[in-house]
């Protein structure tokens, strides 16, 4: 694997490779001492130009469990503040010895830009409203452990599709693996181009629940009401929130997922988030193994076709 920038570049076979490699690292994570030396001597730089808890810590944990060294770059306290350009910053980090950059930025395309400048490998850890591929991979892994093959499974994605990089990556990954995706959102939170996506669209959550194998909830941000996209969070919750009554209508074995951070009481009711079929913390745990697999495939494994 060269870089991981988008799910489409990876394709169904690439997703499959990551899933199989993840099995290996999930086993490492179950050991009493979950650490191997597969990436000893490699340096992974975590470049988060935007806030993050789980993704940054998950990547850094993954790198350390593989024996790699981790450099943490913090935009707020860096020379970017003195006016250094992004390109010079990247070249500096590469000169210090970066083998891989894990990049999060509020603008779409920054990881791709860095990949074009640098000899180091680049992982997109979320760029603007574009993509968040490792989130999609960890969601696919979580789904596979529960449902097996995703072919023909009905996945309902609910929430702010328009502004969500998670939605874009996940829809690409789910459909690549053969799942049927249904989007549920108010019209103001759907992108204009949604008609070209390989998905079904509805504004009625209640009608979509009965045949769902998975309900995937996206975070609703307070600022969407400030932008007049939503009348109020309470109104959103009444129409599109997964409360206990709606959750009870799901068929047995149907899963509830959320990429975090959750707004309990808005897109998901507090008790629903803790229900036995809600696999939200499992998603986070699988995230470490998936990111170990991605880093290993980039830095540890030779290219089979080379």
């Amino acid at each position, binding site marked *: 694997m060269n870089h991981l920038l988008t799910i489409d570049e990876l394709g169904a076979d690439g997703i499959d490779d990551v899933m199989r490699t993840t099995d290996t690292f999930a086993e490492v994570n179950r050991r009493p001492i979950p650490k191997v030396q597969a990436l000893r001597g490699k340096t992974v730089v975590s470049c988060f130009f935007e806030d993050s808890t789980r993704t940054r810590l998950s990547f850094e944990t993954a790198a350390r469990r593989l024996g790699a060294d981790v450099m943490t770059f913090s935009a707020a306290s860096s020379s970017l503040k003195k006016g250094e350009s992004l390109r010079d910053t990247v070249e500096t980090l590469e000169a210090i010895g970066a083998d891989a950059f894990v990049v999060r930025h509020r603008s779409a395309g920054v990881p791709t830009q860095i990949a074009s400048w640098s000899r180091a490998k680049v992982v997109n850890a979320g760029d603007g409203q574009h993509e968040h591929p490792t989130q999609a991979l960890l969601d696919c892994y979580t789904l596979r452990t529960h449902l097996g093959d995703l072919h023909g499974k009905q996945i309902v994605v609910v929430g702010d599709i328009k502004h969500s990089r998670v939605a874009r990556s996940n829809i690409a990954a789910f459909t690549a693996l053969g799942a049927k995706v249904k989007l549920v959102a108010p019209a103001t939170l759907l992108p204009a181009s949604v008609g070209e996506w390989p998905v079904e669209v509805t504004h009625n959550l209640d009608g979509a629940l009965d045949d769902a194998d998975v309900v995937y909830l996206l975070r609703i941000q307070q600022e969407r009401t400030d932008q007049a996209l939503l009348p109020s969070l309470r109104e959103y919750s009444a129409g599109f929130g997964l409360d206990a009554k709606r959750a009870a209508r799901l068929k047995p074995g149907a899963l509830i997922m959320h990429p975090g951070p959750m707004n309990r009481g808005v897109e998901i009711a507090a008790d629903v988030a803790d229900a036995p079929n809600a696999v939200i913390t499992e998603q986070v745990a699988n995230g470490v193994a998936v990111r170990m697999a991605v880093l290993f495939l980039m830095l540890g*494994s*030779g290219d*089979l076709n080379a």
Partner: protein
Amino acid sequence: MRENAVAERERTVAPGAAVFVSRSQVMSGDDLRRAVTRIAHEIVERNHGLTDVVLVALQTGGAMLVERIAAELERIEGVGVPTGTLDVAIYRDDFGLRPVIAEAPTNIPGDITGKTVVLVDDVLFTGRTVRAALNALADFGRAKCVQLAVMVDRGHREVPIRPDFVGKNLPTRRDELVDVRDDGVHLGEMK
């Protein structure tokens, strides 16, 4: 497990890449069966029974042999032995030199501290896989002793490792390839 291993091996051949072409069959299916029986007897004899013996296959070549040796041990001694698998891909020392892929995952039955671990692989060549396996095994406890069973020892060692149980010693050229299957052993090359 065996189906996985076979599927895994087939996947590791890149599309359009060279495929294995047999030049001569060096062990028949019967030869292989007899060698498995002899190795099983030697394991029992060396360890004075099967107390605390654990068989661990090196993925993916050892998976088929471990099942057959375990079945034979059960037939001879009337007791089953725990079996496991070890994937050494993430312990190898040649990242970047040649393709390494994580294969079927490791599955070690419990703590191996105090146990006699018999590592099982199809072909012993440079010894580097076994060296990696010894590293990997150390992450699961301190075995009382580790032994090595292989179907074919083809020479060309690059590290000081020797097998305890051997199906067949087979002199080879470096560029040849040995393929161990359920129905026998072939010598050939990639074409």
